[in-house]
């Protein structure tokens, strides 16, 4: 059965359907969360919360709004981004304190935008974007930065980043569009 059909059963309290749904989506959910959150233990925690949230909130899935997998991954992405931002905020506080204690500030803008992209075709399509489009999109989606943070990291005006994000996503659609 497809994820879409399973979600409908899950919404009715069908635990067997949830087991099947778990089989279909746990890999994509865990992988995406880990890509954003990085830390393995925290990734596992977030992925579990997302999967349990699917059980709890299955009734909210509206097939008219898109595929079940999109819905699930959109949820997973949002939770992963929430986690990485709060971890980052805590880390930055610690770093500021460490800097006060240890003297000169150090710049830790280390770009690893391309790291860990396993599958060739998404990479190939990403490669077709301009550098700024690619960086804007991946810093936001894979690394959980807000567009304001992306603008800061790339030293670009806010308007430029927003435009690059939209153009980048649109070009990705053109490149990957047929490959569903």
């Amino acid at each position, binding site marked *: 059965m497809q994820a879409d059909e399973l979600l409908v059963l899950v*919404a009715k*309290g069908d*635990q067997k359907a*949830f*087991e099947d749904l*778990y089989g279909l989506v*746990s*890999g*994509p959910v*865990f*992988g*995406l969360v*880990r*890509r954003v959150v990085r830390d393995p233990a925290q990734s*596992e*925690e977030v*992925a*579990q*919360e997302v999967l*349990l*949230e699917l*059980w*709890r*909130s*299955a*009734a*909210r899935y509206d097939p008219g709004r*898109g595929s079940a997998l*999109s*819905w699930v*991954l*959109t*949820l997973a*992405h*949002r939770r992963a*981004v*929430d986690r990485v931002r*709060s971890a980052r905020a805590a880390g930055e506080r610690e770093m500021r304190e460490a800097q006060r204690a240890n003297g000169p500030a150090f710049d830790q803008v280390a770009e690893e935008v391309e790291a*860990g992209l*396993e599958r060739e075709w*998404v*990479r190939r399509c990403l490669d077709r974007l301009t550098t700024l489009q690619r960086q804007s*999109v*991946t810093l*936001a989606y*894979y690394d*959980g*930065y*807000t*567009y304001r943070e*992306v603008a800061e990291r790339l030293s670009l005006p806010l308007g430029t980043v*927003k*435009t690059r*994000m*939209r153009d980048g*996503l*649109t070009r*990705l*659609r053109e490149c*990957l569009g047929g490959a569903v």
Partner: protein
Amino acid sequence: MTVLFRRSELHSLAAPYALDALDPREYQRFEKHLKRCDSCAAEVRLLREDAVRLAWNTAAPPPVAMRDRVLMAVRTTPQEAAPGQTAQGPQPHPRAAQQPLPGMRAVRPRPSRLHGLLSPLAATTAAAALVVAALFGVQASRTQDELDQQRTQAREIANILAAPDAAASAGRVSGGQSINVVASASERAAVVTPAGLGNPTNGRVHQLWLMRPEVQPRSLGLFEGDTPLLATDLNPDATSLAVTVEPQGGSPQPTSAPVVQLALKSVGFGE
């Protein structure tokens, strides 16, 4: 700062929104805007699908133990009613109102209260933490006393779930009403979660009973909505759990036939 939120500026937030790249304040503003702006709503639907393509190449096998934890947690976790349907089933989820699923519109960010509650339990078991998340999500806690009581209950639930002999079972009747139980014979305890019981009319209540051979049923407590009940000091010879509808405040002994009954043999009792 308000200058940044001119309407024309808001239109341009569709792509960052689709990438989850707005800060909480802008996120809220844009969600409001989405309700009024059809072109942004249409654009967001498309861009969201585009963003999800970026997840195509990130799939990875989750840790094997995660499956058991999630499936176990599911057995004790109440579900939300479908939007607009409240007569039966679990109470609307306060957290859900604040953090909508994709396609739903409400307010971020997630309340930090939950994290504070989860962390002391994280060491026990992840399944327990999930159950606690569900518990605390369902109940709108108000007083410190209630919070403390819930923490204690959460710890006890964690112990049951962590017991080596913890086993799960579900009793279902027609109409979608059921109770799920995770029990440990060694701990002599069980977590009992109603599903779809709803609240009886006329101020009456759902009362949970422990049934034993040749002994009067013993009350294990009253359900509040679909919040799990923790049943302790269970007798090893217990044969089943039963739920009856009773007058407000509950009864010393059942006054009606059970609406749901669940045998305990499969979870290690009755010997």
